[in-house]
Protein backbone atom coordinates (compact mmCIF):
# COMPACT_ATOMS: atom_id res chain seq x y z
CA UNK A 1 0.00 0.00 0.00
CA UNK A 2 1.28 3.48 -0.77
CA UNK A 3 2.28 5.87 1.94
CA UNK A 4 -0.06 8.78 2.59
CA UNK A 5 2.49 10.76 4.54
CA UNK A 6 6.21 10.46 4.34
CA UNK A 7 8.08 12.76 6.69
CA UNK A 8 11.78 12.65 6.16
CA UNK A 9 14.10 14.01 8.83
CA UNK A 10 11.92 17.00 9.66
CA UNK A 11 13.81 19.60 11.61
CA UNK A 12 12.61 22.91 12.92
CA UNK A 13 14.53 25.61 14.74
CA UNK A 14 13.04 28.62 16.49
CA UNK A 15 16.11 30.82 16.65
CA UNK A 16 18.68 28.67 18.41
CA UNK A 17 16.08 26.47 20.02
CA UNK A 18 15.54 23.20 18.24
CA UNK A 19 11.85 22.34 18.52
CA UNK A 20 11.79 19.29 16.28
CA UNK A 21 14.90 17.29 15.54
CA UNK A 22 15.09 14.91 12.57
CA UNK A 23 11.67 13.34 12.97
CA UNK A 24 10.88 10.75 10.30
CA UNK A 25 7.79 8.63 9.98
CA UNK A 26 5.28 7.30 7.49
CA UNK A 27 1.54 6.91 7.55
CA UNK A 28 -0.37 4.41 5.45
CA UNK A 29 -4.00 4.27 4.47
CA UNK A 30 -6.13 2.82 7.24
CA UNK A 31 -3.71 3.79 9.97
CA UNK A 32 -4.53 6.04 12.88
CA UNK A 33 -1.36 7.44 14.32
CA UNK A 34 -1.43 8.74 17.88
CA UNK A 35 1.08 11.45 18.58
CA UNK A 36 2.06 11.66 22.22
CA UNK A 37 4.45 13.79 24.16
CA UNK A 38 4.72 16.10 27.15
CA UNK A 39 3.95 19.79 26.74
CA UNK A 40 6.42 21.58 24.54
CA UNK A 41 7.80 18.37 23.06
CA UNK A 42 7.15 19.53 19.52
CA UNK A 43 3.85 17.83 18.72
CA UNK A 44 2.06 20.89 17.44
CA UNK A 45 5.13 22.12 15.61
CA UNK A 46 5.37 18.79 13.77
CA UNK A 47 1.68 18.90 12.90
CA UNK A 48 1.93 22.47 11.63
CA UNK A 49 4.79 21.44 9.40
CA UNK A 50 2.84 18.51 7.98
CA UNK A 51 -0.03 20.86 7.17
CA UNK A 52 2.11 23.51 5.54
CA UNK A 53 1.44 26.11 8.22
CA UNK A 54 5.09 26.19 9.14
CA UNK A 55 8.06 25.66 6.88
CA UNK A 56 10.55 23.10 8.18
CA UNK A 57 14.14 24.26 8.62
CA UNK A 58 15.25 21.00 7.05
CA UNK A 59 13.73 17.78 5.79
CA UNK A 60 10.97 16.84 3.38
CA UNK A 61 7.30 15.96 3.59
CA UNK A 62 5.15 14.37 0.97
CA UNK A 63 1.41 13.98 1.18
CA UNK A 64 -0.06 11.18 -0.92
CA UNK A 65 3.09 11.21 -3.00
CA UNK A 66 3.07 14.97 -3.61
CA UNK A 67 5.89 17.04 -2.19
CA UNK A 68 4.39 19.59 0.19
CA UNK A 69 7.18 22.12 -0.16
CA UNK A 70 7.43 22.01 -3.93
CA UNK A 71 3.76 21.71 -4.85
CA UNK A 72 1.95 23.04 -1.79
CA UNK A 73 -1.41 23.66 -3.47
CA UNK A 74 -1.85 20.12 -4.76
CA UNK A 75 -0.56 18.59 -1.55
CA UNK A 76 -2.86 20.70 0.61
CA UNK A 77 -5.89 19.56 -1.36
CA UNK A 78 -5.25 16.10 0.10
CA UNK A 79 -5.13 17.44 3.63
CA UNK A 80 -7.64 18.21 6.36
CA UNK A 81 -6.32 19.96 9.43
CA UNK A 82 -7.82 20.80 12.80
CA UNK A 83 -5.42 23.02 14.76
CA UNK A 84 -5.37 23.27 18.55
CA UNK A 85 -7.91 26.08 18.50
CA UNK A 86 -10.67 25.33 16.01
CA UNK A 87 -10.29 27.87 13.17
CA UNK A 88 -13.92 29.01 13.11
CA UNK A 89 -15.39 32.42 12.33
CA UNK A 90 -17.64 33.31 15.21
CA UNK A 91 -19.85 35.60 13.16
CA UNK A 92 -20.88 32.91 10.68
CA UNK A 93 -23.41 30.12 11.10
CA UNK A 94 -22.27 26.51 10.89
CA UNK A 95 -23.80 26.21 7.41
CA UNK A 96 -22.16 29.36 6.10
CA UNK A 97 -18.84 28.37 7.58
CA UNK A 98 -18.84 24.89 6.07
CA UNK A 99 -19.91 26.30 2.70
CA UNK A 100 -17.00 28.72 2.85
CA UNK A 101 -14.52 25.95 3.73
CA UNK A 102 -15.88 23.75 0.94
CA UNK A 103 -15.52 26.55 -1.60
CA UNK A 104 -11.94 27.16 -0.48
CA UNK A 105 -11.30 23.54 -1.41
CA UNK A 106 -12.88 24.09 -4.78
CA UNK A 107 -16.12 22.16 -4.20
CA UNK A 108 -18.99 23.15 -6.49
CA UNK A 109 -22.74 23.26 -5.84
CA UNK A 110 -23.94 19.66 -5.82
CA UNK A 111 -20.70 18.24 -4.49
CA UNK A 112 -20.54 21.02 -1.93
CA UNK A 113 -24.01 20.32 -0.64
CA UNK A 114 -23.36 16.62 -0.41
CA UNK A 115 -20.06 17.15 1.39
CA UNK A 116 -21.42 19.61 3.96
CA UNK A 117 -24.42 17.42 4.69
CA UNK A 118 -22.18 14.41 5.15
CA UNK A 119 -19.79 16.30 7.44
CA UNK A 120 -22.67 17.70 9.51
CA UNK A 121 -24.15 14.26 9.93
CA UNK A 122 -20.86 12.71 10.87
CA UNK A 123 -20.13 15.35 13.49
CA UNK A 124 -23.67 15.68 14.86
CA UNK A 125 -24.11 19.28 13.73
CA UNK A 126 -27.51 18.99 12.03
CA UNK A 127 -29.47 20.56 14.85
CA UNK A 128 -27.13 23.54 15.24
CA UNK A 129 -26.56 24.08 11.51
CA UNK A 130 -28.29 27.47 11.46
CA UNK A 131 -26.82 28.86 14.65
CA UNK A 132 -23.93 31.28 14.92
CA UNK A 133 -20.70 29.50 15.75
CA UNK A 134 -19.88 32.16 18.34
CA UNK A 135 -22.99 31.18 20.33
CA UNK A 136 -22.18 27.48 20.36
CA UNK A 137 -20.48 25.67 23.23
CA UNK A 138 -16.84 24.74 23.04
CA UNK A 139 -17.77 21.16 22.22
CA UNK A 140 -19.83 22.15 19.19
CA UNK A 141 -17.14 24.55 18.03
CA UNK A 142 -14.68 21.71 18.24
CA UNK A 143 -17.01 19.51 16.22
CA UNK A 144 -17.40 22.25 13.63
CA UNK A 145 -13.62 22.30 13.41
CA UNK A 146 -13.57 18.54 12.84
CA UNK A 147 -16.35 18.83 10.24
CA UNK A 148 -14.21 21.38 8.40
CA UNK A 149 -11.24 18.98 8.40
CA UNK A 150 -13.16 16.04 6.93
CA UNK A 151 -15.33 18.10 4.59
CA UNK A 152 -13.46 17.63 1.34
CA UNK A 153 -12.74 13.97 2.12
CA UNK A 154 -8.96 14.41 2.18
CA UNK A 155 -6.53 11.49 2.07
CA UNK A 156 -4.89 12.65 5.28
CA UNK A 157 -6.63 14.09 8.31
CA UNK A 158 -4.54 15.80 10.97
CA UNK A 159 -6.24 16.48 14.27
CA UNK A 160 -4.46 18.40 17.00
CA UNK A 161 -6.07 17.41 20.30
CA UNK A 162 -9.52 16.73 18.86
CA UNK A 163 -11.27 15.83 22.11
CA UNK A 164 -10.28 18.84 24.21
CA UNK A 165 -13.29 20.52 25.74
CA UNK A 166 -15.77 17.78 24.94
CA UNK A 167 -17.97 15.98 27.45
CA UNK A 168 -17.54 12.21 27.95
CA UNK A 169 -20.41 11.32 25.62
CA UNK A 170 -19.09 13.55 22.86
CA UNK A 171 -15.60 12.14 23.40
CA UNK A 172 -16.96 8.65 22.80
CA UNK A 173 -18.74 9.82 19.66
CA UNK A 174 -15.67 11.57 18.32
CA UNK A 175 -13.51 8.53 19.03
CA UNK A 176 -15.83 6.25 17.12
CA UNK A 177 -15.96 8.86 14.34
CA UNK A 178 -12.17 8.81 14.20
CA UNK A 179 -12.15 5.01 14.05
CA UNK A 180 -14.68 5.07 11.21
CA UNK A 181 -12.73 7.69 9.30
CA UNK A 182 -9.55 5.74 9.84
CA UNK A 183 -10.80 3.00 7.59
CA UNK A 184 -10.77 5.18 4.50
CA UNK A 185 -8.27 7.89 5.38
CA UNK A 186 -4.95 8.17 7.12
CA UNK A 187 -5.28 10.02 10.41
CA UNK A 188 -2.78 11.64 12.70
CA UNK A 189 -4.01 12.84 16.05
CA UNK A 190 -2.16 14.34 18.95
CA UNK A 191 -3.39 14.10 22.48
CA UNK A 192 -2.45 14.14 26.14
CA UNK A 193 -5.05 11.55 26.98
CA UNK A 194 -3.46 8.13 26.99
CA UNK A 195 -6.58 5.95 26.99
CA UNK A 196 -7.59 7.77 23.84
CA UNK A 197 -4.53 6.46 22.06
CA UNK A 198 -5.10 2.94 23.33
CA UNK A 199 -8.70 3.09 22.21
CA UNK A 200 -8.68 4.77 18.85
CA UNK A 201 -5.20 4.48 17.38
CA UNK A 202 -3.45 1.74 15.50
CA UNK A 203 0.00 3.23 15.90
CA UNK A 204 1.74 5.33 18.54
CA UNK A 205 4.54 7.79 18.39
CA UNK A 206 6.06 9.40 21.42
CA UNK A 207 8.06 12.56 20.95
CA UNK A 208 10.32 14.03 23.60
CA UNK A 209 12.29 17.25 23.31
CA UNK A 210 11.80 17.23 19.58
CA UNK A 211 13.05 13.69 19.10
CA UNK A 212 11.02 10.64 18.23
CA UNK A 213 11.60 8.16 21.05
CA UNK A 214 9.02 5.52 20.24
CA UNK A 215 7.22 4.49 17.07
CA UNK A 216 5.29 1.28 17.19
CA UNK A 217 1.92 -0.26 16.50
CA UNK A 218 -0.54 -0.60 19.35
CA UNK A 219 -0.71 -4.37 18.91
CA UNK A 220 3.01 -4.88 19.51
CA UNK A 221 2.93 -2.42 22.38
CA UNK A 222 0.08 -4.22 24.04
CA UNK A 223 2.04 -7.46 23.83
CA UNK A 224 5.00 -5.78 25.46
CA UNK A 225 2.81 -4.23 28.06
CA UNK A 226 1.12 -7.52 28.94
CA UNK A 227 2.31 -7.87 32.47
CA UNK A 228 5.19 -9.71 33.94
CA UNK A 229 3.78 -9.72 37.45
CA UNK A 230 0.63 -10.55 39.40
CA UNK A 231 -0.67 -9.87 42.86
CA UNK A 232 -1.47 -12.71 45.20
CA UNK A 233 -3.67 -12.25 48.24
CA UNK A 234 -4.03 -14.93 50.90
CA UNK A 235 -5.75 -15.23 54.25
CA UNK A 236 -2.61 -16.35 56.13
CA UNK A 237 0.89 -15.03 55.88
CA UNK A 238 3.31 -16.93 53.73
CA UNK A 239 7.02 -17.28 54.37
CA UNK A 240 9.01 -15.70 51.57
CA UNK A 241 10.98 -18.84 50.79
CA UNK A 242 7.88 -20.79 49.92
CA UNK A 243 6.82 -18.64 47.00
CA UNK A 244 10.32 -18.15 45.80
CA UNK A 245 10.75 -21.88 45.42
CA UNK A 246 7.91 -22.25 42.94
CA UNK A 247 9.11 -22.78 39.40
CA UNK A 248 8.98 -19.70 37.18
CA UNK A 249 8.87 -17.14 39.95
CA UNK A 250 11.61 -14.55 39.69
CA UNK A 251 11.19 -12.31 42.70
CA UNK A 252 8.60 -11.81 45.38
CA UNK A 253 7.70 -8.48 46.94
CA UNK A 254 5.82 -8.62 50.21
CA UNK A 255 3.09 -6.01 50.39
CA UNK A 256 0.87 -5.07 53.33
CA UNK A 257 -1.94 -7.35 54.54
CA UNK A 258 -0.90 -10.74 53.19
CA UNK A 259 -0.46 -9.52 49.64
CA UNK A 260 2.47 -10.38 47.47
CA UNK A 261 3.62 -9.15 44.11
CA UNK A 262 5.17 -11.95 42.11
CA UNK A 263 7.38 -11.19 39.12
CA UNK A 264 8.04 -13.76 36.44
CA UNK A 265 9.53 -14.12 33.00
CA UNK A 266 7.32 -13.21 30.09
CA UNK A 267 7.40 -16.66 28.54
CA UNK A 268 6.04 -18.82 31.31
CA UNK A 269 3.33 -17.70 33.65
CA UNK A 270 3.48 -19.53 37.00
CA UNK A 271 0.01 -18.40 38.10
CA UNK A 272 -1.57 -21.84 37.98
CA UNK A 273 1.34 -23.38 39.81
CA UNK A 274 1.25 -20.73 42.51
CA UNK A 275 -2.49 -21.09 43.01
CA UNK A 276 -2.22 -24.85 43.30
CA UNK A 277 0.63 -24.76 45.80
CA UNK A 278 -0.97 -22.05 47.92
CA UNK A 279 -4.20 -24.02 48.20
CA UNK A 280 -2.42 -27.25 48.88
CA UNK A 281 -0.44 -25.72 51.71
CA UNK A 282 -3.58 -24.27 53.22
CA UNK A 283 -2.67 -20.57 53.11
CA UNK A 284 -6.13 -19.73 51.82
CA UNK A 285 -6.14 -18.19 48.34
CA UNK A 286 -8.16 -15.04 48.15
CA UNK A 287 -7.22 -13.33 44.96
CA UNK A 288 -4.86 -13.61 42.06
CA UNK A 289 -4.76 -10.51 39.92
CA UNK A 290 -2.60 -10.12 36.84
CA UNK A 291 -0.95 -6.74 36.70
CA UNK A 292 -0.74 -4.88 33.43
CA UNK A 293 1.70 -2.11 32.84
CA UNK A 294 -0.38 0.80 31.74
CA UNK A 295 0.26 3.02 28.78
CA UNK A 296 0.88 5.71 31.32
CA UNK A 297 3.77 3.84 32.92
CA UNK A 298 5.29 3.33 29.51
CA UNK A 299 4.75 6.96 28.59
CA UNK A 300 6.46 8.15 31.77
CA UNK A 301 9.27 5.70 31.26
CA UNK A 302 9.92 6.77 27.72
CA UNK A 303 9.55 10.49 28.23
CA UNK A 304 11.48 10.67 31.45
CA UNK A 305 13.70 7.61 31.31
CA UNK A 306 16.64 8.69 29.26
CA UNK A 307 17.27 12.08 30.77
CA UNK A 308 20.83 13.14 31.53
Amino acid at each position, binding site marked *: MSNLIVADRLTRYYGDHCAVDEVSFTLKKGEILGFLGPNGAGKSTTMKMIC*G*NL*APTDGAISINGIDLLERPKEA*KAELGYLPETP*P*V*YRELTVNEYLDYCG*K*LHGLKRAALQKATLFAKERCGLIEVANRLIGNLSKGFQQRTGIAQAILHSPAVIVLDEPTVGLDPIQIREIRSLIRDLGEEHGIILSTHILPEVEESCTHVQIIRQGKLVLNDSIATLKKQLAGSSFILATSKEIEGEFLQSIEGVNTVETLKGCRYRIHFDNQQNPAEMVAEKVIQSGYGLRALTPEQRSMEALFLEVTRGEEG
Partner: protein
Amino acid sequence: MKIITIAGRELRSLFLSPLAWTILGVVQLILAYLFLSQIDYYLMIQPKIAGIEGAPGVTDLVIAPLFSNAAIILLLITPLLTMRLISEERRNQTLSLLFSAPLSMTEIIFGKYLGMMAFMLIMISMIALMPLSLMAGATLDYGKLAAGIVALILLMGAFSAVGLYMSAIASQPTVAAIGSFGLLLLLWIIDWAGSNSDKGSELFASLSLLRHFENLLKGLINSADIAYYLLFIILFLTLAVRRLDNDRLQK
Protein backbone atom coordinates in the same frame (compact mmCIF):
# COMPACT_ATOMS: atom_id res chain seq x y z
CA MET B 1 -12.75 31.63 -8.02
CA LYS B 2 -11.26 31.10 -4.59
CA ILE B 3 -10.21 34.74 -4.51
CA ILE B 4 -13.87 35.68 -4.93
CA THR B 5 -14.81 33.27 -2.13
CA ILE B 6 -12.40 34.94 0.28
CA ALA B 7 -13.49 38.41 -0.84
CA GLY B 8 -17.13 37.45 -0.38
CA ARG B 9 -16.60 36.22 3.15
CA GLU B 10 -14.60 39.32 4.01
CA LEU B 11 -17.38 41.60 2.78
CA ARG B 12 -20.00 39.53 4.53
CA SER B 13 -18.14 39.59 7.82
CA LEU B 14 -17.80 43.36 7.53
CA PHE B 15 -21.55 43.76 7.22
CA LEU B 16 -22.22 41.26 9.98
CA SER B 17 -20.46 43.54 12.44
CA PRO B 18 -21.89 46.94 13.32
CA LEU B 19 -18.62 48.55 12.30
CA ALA B 20 -19.35 48.69 8.57
CA TRP B 21 -22.85 50.10 9.07
CA THR B 22 -21.65 52.66 11.58
CA ILE B 23 -18.89 53.84 9.30
CA LEU B 24 -21.18 54.09 6.29
CA GLY B 25 -23.68 56.05 8.36
CA VAL B 26 -21.21 58.41 9.97
CA VAL B 27 -19.37 59.15 6.73
CA GLN B 28 -22.61 59.82 4.93
CA LEU B 29 -23.84 62.13 7.68
CA ILE B 30 -20.68 64.21 7.86
CA LEU B 31 -20.33 64.48 4.11
CA ALA B 32 -23.99 65.40 3.70
CA TYR B 33 -23.47 68.28 6.13
CA LEU B 34 -20.37 69.44 4.26
CA PHE B 35 -22.19 69.04 0.96
CA LEU B 36 -25.09 71.20 2.10
CA SER B 37 -22.86 73.93 3.48
CA GLN B 38 -20.93 73.89 0.22
CA ILE B 39 -24.19 74.35 -1.70
CA ASP B 40 -25.13 77.21 0.60
CA TYR B 41 -21.82 78.86 -0.12
CA TYR B 42 -22.30 78.37 -3.83
CA LEU B 43 -25.77 79.91 -3.78
CA MET B 44 -24.33 82.89 -1.91
CA ILE B 45 -21.58 83.64 -4.40
CA GLN B 46 -23.43 82.58 -7.51
CA PRO B 47 -24.82 86.07 -8.28
CA LYS B 48 -21.36 87.56 -7.94
CA ILE B 49 -19.64 85.19 -10.34
CA ALA B 50 -22.53 84.91 -12.77
CA GLY B 51 -21.21 87.62 -14.97
CA ILE B 52 -17.60 86.53 -15.09
CA GLU B 53 -16.38 84.78 -18.17
CA GLY B 54 -15.08 81.22 -17.51
CA ALA B 55 -15.97 81.30 -13.85
CA PRO B 56 -15.86 78.03 -11.92
CA GLY B 57 -19.12 76.14 -12.07
CA VAL B 58 -21.03 73.99 -9.63
CA THR B 59 -18.77 70.99 -10.25
CA ASP B 60 -15.69 72.95 -9.21
CA LEU B 61 -17.25 74.74 -6.27
CA VAL B 62 -19.32 71.91 -4.79
CA ILE B 63 -18.18 68.54 -6.00
CA ALA B 64 -14.41 68.97 -5.91
CA PRO B 65 -14.41 70.25 -2.31
CA LEU B 66 -16.79 67.46 -1.35
CA PHE B 67 -14.47 64.82 -2.74
CA SER B 68 -11.40 66.27 -1.14
CA ASN B 69 -13.18 66.37 2.21
CA ALA B 70 -14.26 62.80 1.64
CA ALA B 71 -10.63 61.84 1.07
CA ILE B 72 -9.60 63.27 4.45
CA ILE B 73 -12.45 61.60 6.30
CA LEU B 74 -11.66 58.30 4.63
CA LEU B 75 -8.02 58.72 5.58
CA LEU B 76 -9.19 58.66 9.19
CA ILE B 77 -11.58 55.79 8.69
CA THR B 78 -9.87 53.32 6.36
CA PRO B 79 -7.41 52.12 9.04
CA LEU B 80 -10.38 51.15 11.22
CA LEU B 81 -11.78 49.03 8.42
CA THR B 82 -8.58 47.39 7.30
CA MET B 83 -7.11 46.71 10.73
CA ARG B 84 -8.88 43.40 11.22
CA LEU B 85 -8.20 41.94 7.80
CA ILE B 86 -5.33 39.69 8.79
CA SER B 87 -4.37 40.53 12.35
CA GLU B 88 -7.74 39.40 13.69
CA GLU B 89 -7.51 36.12 11.85
CA ARG B 90 -4.07 35.68 13.29
CA ARG B 91 -5.33 36.41 16.81
CA ASN B 92 -8.29 34.04 16.49
CA GLN B 93 -6.02 31.48 14.86
CA THR B 94 -8.31 31.16 11.89
CA LEU B 95 -5.41 31.95 9.59
CA SER B 96 -4.41 28.28 9.69
CA LEU B 97 -7.65 27.48 7.88
CA LEU B 98 -6.44 29.53 4.93
CA PHE B 99 -2.89 28.23 5.24
CA SER B 100 -3.91 24.59 5.13
CA ALA B 101 -6.40 25.11 2.29
CA PRO B 102 -5.07 24.77 -1.25
CA LEU B 103 -4.41 28.50 -1.66
CA SER B 104 -1.33 30.53 -2.38
CA MET B 105 -0.42 33.52 -0.23
CA THR B 106 -1.12 35.77 -3.22
CA GLU B 107 -4.65 34.44 -3.48
CA ILE B 108 -5.26 35.06 0.22
CA ILE B 109 -4.01 38.65 0.01
CA PHE B 110 -5.88 39.41 -3.21
CA GLY B 111 -9.05 37.92 -1.80
CA LYS B 112 -8.84 40.11 1.27
CA TYR B 113 -8.00 43.16 -0.81
CA LEU B 114 -10.88 42.63 -3.22
CA GLY B 115 -13.29 42.21 -0.30
CA MET B 116 -12.13 45.51 1.13
CA MET B 117 -12.31 47.25 -2.25
CA ALA B 118 -15.86 46.01 -2.72
CA PHE B 119 -16.77 47.75 0.52
CA MET B 120 -14.93 50.89 -0.59
CA LEU B 121 -16.86 50.90 -3.87
CA ILE B 122 -20.12 50.75 -1.95
CA MET B 123 -19.00 53.69 0.14
CA ILE B 124 -17.82 55.69 -2.89
CA SER B 125 -21.08 55.08 -4.73
CA MET B 126 -22.96 56.35 -1.67
CA ILE B 127 -20.81 59.46 -1.69
CA ALA B 128 -21.25 59.93 -5.45
CA LEU B 129 -25.01 59.91 -5.02
CA MET B 130 -24.86 63.36 -3.41
CA PRO B 131 -23.42 65.25 -6.37
CA LEU B 132 -25.62 63.22 -8.69
CA SER B 133 -28.65 64.58 -6.86
CA LEU B 134 -27.69 68.01 -8.20
CA MET B 135 -28.65 66.78 -11.65
CA ALA B 136 -32.21 67.68 -10.72
CA GLY B 137 -31.52 71.42 -10.81
CA ALA B 138 -28.16 72.03 -12.40
CA THR B 139 -25.94 70.99 -15.28
CA LEU B 140 -22.94 68.98 -14.13
CA ASP B 141 -19.58 68.57 -15.75
CA TYR B 142 -19.73 64.78 -16.07
CA GLY B 143 -16.14 64.48 -17.15
CA LYS B 144 -14.95 66.15 -13.99
CA LEU B 145 -17.32 64.13 -11.88
CA ALA B 146 -16.03 60.91 -13.42
CA ALA B 147 -12.44 62.01 -12.87
CA GLY B 148 -13.29 62.71 -9.23
CA ILE B 149 -14.78 59.28 -8.77
CA VAL B 150 -11.79 57.62 -10.41
CA ALA B 151 -9.55 59.65 -8.11
CA LEU B 152 -11.45 58.48 -5.04
CA ILE B 153 -11.35 54.85 -6.15
CA LEU B 154 -7.61 54.97 -6.75
CA LEU B 155 -7.03 56.72 -3.46
CA MET B 156 -9.11 54.18 -1.57
CA GLY B 157 -7.20 51.42 -3.35
CA ALA B 158 -3.98 52.91 -2.05
CA PHE B 159 -5.36 53.36 1.48
CA SER B 160 -6.63 49.78 1.56
CA ALA B 161 -3.32 48.38 0.35
CA VAL B 162 -1.45 50.18 3.12
CA GLY B 163 -4.03 49.05 5.66
CA LEU B 164 -3.80 45.46 4.50
CA TYR B 165 -0.04 45.48 4.74
CA MET B 166 -0.11 46.96 8.23
CA SER B 167 -2.67 44.37 9.26
CA ALA B 168 -0.35 41.64 7.98
CA ILE B 169 2.48 43.04 10.08
CA ALA B 170 0.66 43.68 13.34
CA SER B 171 -0.41 41.05 15.80
CA GLN B 172 -3.14 43.29 17.18
CA PRO B 173 -5.80 45.14 15.19
CA THR B 174 -5.28 48.39 17.12
CA VAL B 175 -1.59 48.42 16.34
CA ALA B 176 -2.43 47.85 12.68
CA ALA B 177 -4.87 50.78 12.74
CA ILE B 178 -2.38 53.17 14.32
CA GLY B 179 0.38 52.02 11.97
CA SER B 180 -1.63 52.50 8.83
CA PHE B 181 -3.06 55.80 9.99
CA GLY B 182 0.43 57.09 10.74
CA LEU B 183 1.84 55.97 7.41
CA LEU B 184 -1.09 57.37 5.43
CA LEU B 185 -0.97 60.71 7.19
CA LEU B 186 2.76 60.94 6.63
CA LEU B 187 2.34 60.23 2.91
CA TRP B 188 -0.49 62.74 2.81
CA ILE B 189 1.49 65.62 4.23
CA ILE B 190 4.95 64.65 3.03
CA ASP B 191 5.06 67.47 0.48
CA TRP B 192 4.69 70.09 3.21
CA ALA B 193 8.27 69.39 4.24
CA GLY B 194 9.81 70.79 1.11
CA SER B 195 7.28 73.49 0.38
CA ASN B 196 9.41 76.30 1.79
CA SER B 197 12.65 75.49 0.05
CA ASP B 198 12.85 74.51 -3.58
CA LYS B 199 15.37 71.76 -2.95
CA GLY B 200 13.98 68.27 -2.58
CA SER B 201 10.40 69.42 -2.69
CA GLU B 202 9.97 67.89 -6.11
CA LEU B 203 10.73 64.43 -4.80
CA PHE B 204 8.46 64.80 -1.79
CA ALA B 205 5.68 66.20 -3.92
CA SER B 206 5.83 63.23 -6.22
CA LEU B 207 5.63 60.88 -3.24
CA SER B 208 2.63 62.63 -1.77
CA LEU B 209 -0.74 60.93 -1.99
CA LEU B 210 -2.41 64.33 -1.87
CA ARG B 211 -0.69 65.88 -4.88
CA HIS B 212 -1.69 63.11 -7.25
CA PHE B 213 -5.22 63.16 -5.89
CA GLU B 214 -5.55 66.90 -6.43
CA ASN B 215 -4.45 66.57 -10.03
CA LEU B 216 -7.12 64.00 -10.74
CA LEU B 217 -9.74 66.00 -8.92
CA LYS B 218 -9.15 68.94 -11.24
CA GLY B 219 -10.25 66.66 -14.03
CA LEU B 220 -6.70 66.11 -15.18
CA ILE B 221 -6.34 62.40 -15.83
CA ASN B 222 -2.63 62.05 -16.11
CA SER B 223 -1.04 58.67 -16.76
CA ALA B 224 1.72 59.57 -14.27
CA ASP B 225 -0.83 59.97 -11.47
CA ILE B 226 -2.60 56.76 -12.34
CA ALA B 227 0.71 54.92 -12.58
CA TYR B 228 1.64 56.32 -9.16
CA TYR B 229 -1.45 54.81 -7.54
CA LEU B 230 -1.16 51.49 -9.32
CA LEU B 231 2.50 51.14 -8.37
CA PHE B 232 1.67 52.15 -4.82
CA ILE B 233 -1.03 49.47 -4.58
CA ILE B 234 1.14 46.77 -6.15
CA LEU B 235 4.04 47.64 -3.84
CA PHE B 236 2.03 47.29 -0.64
CA LEU B 237 0.20 44.18 -1.78
CA THR B 238 3.50 42.52 -2.65
CA LEU B 239 4.87 43.47 0.75
CA ALA B 240 1.78 42.00 2.38
CA VAL B 241 2.21 38.71 0.49
CA ARG B 242 5.83 38.58 1.58
CA ARG B 243 4.89 39.32 5.16
CA LEU B 244 2.24 36.63 5.23
CA ASP B 245 4.65 34.11 3.80
CA ASN B 246 6.95 35.02 6.66
CA ASP B 247 4.38 33.64 9.09
CA ARG B 248 5.19 30.26 7.69
CA LEU B 249 8.93 30.77 7.78
CA GLN B 250 9.01 32.68 11.07
CA LYS B 251 12.28 33.00 13.01
